[in-house]
């Protein structure tokens, strides 16, 4: 397995380096943070090692790149396959229509002239922080950074499941914040006093009496005590008439209809929401730093 290959080569390299291992890993960390390019990192490593020890360094880099390539490979091959099949289709069309013309002008196929795309992840010179890419961190990126952090602390490495948890956790965190901002802007319903749904639904007009809150056909859940062997069974679901009627009734009870607020979310909304809902971001240092950034973005010496 490739993670064993990495570990074996790393251990050999550690034995060979001895005291200089901390310097080596410092250079490697700077390479990951894009402060050094691959060539510079290579030169520094060769300066630290003697001629026959460079072999271990090469092996280690090779194992690392193999592991990351394997993780990022599938997405690259899929994109590459799509590109190939697309160019093949377009070329076929052009040949059929132009065989009879004398002056054959074919527009060049763009995909042949683009530079080959480099795989994202630990081994490339591409961007490393998720914010710079404006993509959420994917599995390969997280595994790469985990492994590096683990090696610094003397651990063996990182498993794939840990990276899965982090990927889902980042998504959950961002969704919680966005939900908090949206819930300040639009109405919603609560189920069991905890589960928020139907964001953006019509809210009843509070200045008029209405009975819309008395009965919602979907509020009673799906369990029913009936005559089966277990005495518990699924409840008969509401009919489509009932549900349509209750939706129409909601609209009838709602306030005078203004244009729904479809604007993009603004920085001010984020700032105000995070001031009131402090516990959306549970860690105070993250909260404080980001509130400072938001406040700076909203402020200017000329205001």
């Amino acid at each position, binding site marked *: 397995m490739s993670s064993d290959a990495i570990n074996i080569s790393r251990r050999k390299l550690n034995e060979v380096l001895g005291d200089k291992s901390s310097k080596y890993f410092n250079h490697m960390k700077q390479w990951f943070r894009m402060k050094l390019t691959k060539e510079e990192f290579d030169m520094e490593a060769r300066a630290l090692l003697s001629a026959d020890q460079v072999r271990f360094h090469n092996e280690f880099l090779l194992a690392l790149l193999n592991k990351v390539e394997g993780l990022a490979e599938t997405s690259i091959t899929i994109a590459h396959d799509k590109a190939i099949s697309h160019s093949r289709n377009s070329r076929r069309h052009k040949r059929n229509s132009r065989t009879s013309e004398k002056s054959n002008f074919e527009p060049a196929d763009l995909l042949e002239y683009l530079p080959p795309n480099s795989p994202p992840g630990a081994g490339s010179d591409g961007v490393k922080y998720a914010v710079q890419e404006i993509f959420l961190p994917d599995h390969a990126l997280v595994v790469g950074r985990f492994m590096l952090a683990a090696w610094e602390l003397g651990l063996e490495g990182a498993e794939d499941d840990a990276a899965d948890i982090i990927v*889902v956790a980042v998504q*959950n965190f961002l*969704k*919680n914040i966005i*939900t*908090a901002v949206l*819930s300040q802007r639009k109405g919603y319903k*609560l*189920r*069991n*006093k*905890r*589960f*928020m*749904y*139907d*964001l*953006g639904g*019509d809210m009843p007009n509070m200045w008029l009496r209405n009975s819309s809150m008395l009965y919602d*056909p*979907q509020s*009673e*859940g*799906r*369990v*029913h*005590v*009936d*005559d*089966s*062997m*277990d*005495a*518990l*069974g*699924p*409840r*008969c*679901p*509401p*009919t*489509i*008439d*009932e*549900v*349509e009627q209750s*939706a*129409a009734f909601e*609209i009838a009870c709602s306030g005078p209809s203004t244009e*729904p607020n*479809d604007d993009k979310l603004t920085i001010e909304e984020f700032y105000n929401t995070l001031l*009131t*809902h402090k*516990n*959306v971001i*549970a860690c105070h240092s993250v909260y404080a730093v980001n509130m400072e950034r938001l406040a700076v973005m909203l402020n200017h010496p000329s205001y």
Partner: protein
Amino acid sequence: MVSYFTIDATGENTNFQKEISNMMHGFGDNPNPNAATVVLVEDIVLQQLRSMIQEALNYSMLKGTNVISNHEIIYLMRKNPVKLKRLQNYQIKMDHIDNTRNPTAANPSTTSILTGIVLEEEKESKKKRTHIDVIKDLDEMDEVSLVKFDAIDYLRKVRAAKITESMSFEKYEAYHKARCSSFRSGYGLSKGFVKLESWINPTKELKITQLALEVLCFLAYETVAEIVDAVFLIRQDSKKKSGDPFSKFEGGYFCNPQSLNNAVYIKSGYEGVPAITVAEVREVLRRYFTPTTGINGLFHRNMSNDLPVRFIAI
């Protein structure tokens, strides 16, 4: 996918995946639910049951006993009168079923007054269900008796009967079997919960009474039901189109009377429902445990210094 939580004392896997799969179909999912989703739901139910047992253990230690009985678990449910009322109806139904199954064993008055058999009579009456008595103890303001289930359910049942008349026999058979699954493994008060107990209490380090296991079986069923219900609510949210208020009901799980078969928006839910995915269940859990509503929300006052514990089913 192997679940790491369900290996019991003999090293084999006790799991409820088949039962949960059937239950999810009964609640409205595709006839073949996604396997990864079933494993995830099983994990969730197991975790919830274990936290409930942990809380109940705290209460029973406060009381000084070392056995978890149904009193502690019903105490956990004390704030939710709808669920208490359902548990009450459940007990009434189960007692009725037991009586019709065993007409002789339910009559302590026929035993004689000799001392040896008086002990047996006490044992018999202890085996009776006490959930309703516990509920009456805990329900100081009589809220539970005020919860009414009304005639709307009857109308729905009539309509559902009309639909099932048009289903073929095998499909109905499979659907009926799916609706009948639960977490119970046998019937009768004494031997019904062997599998459930080995699932949540594999090393038998806690003592749980049979009545408590019955309430836990009820709560596990409620948990699965709440999760499936919430998934369908999320699907409605994702189908909303602006300007068309009925578009969110498209393709959902509703009881479709024969007369609306040609309606534009609605498809019948029995086979066409796409299976519930893992991502949907994760979104449901995220919304249940979101930091802005409920206990961590803005206007909640925590007078006692308890750590907040939240259960999906309660």
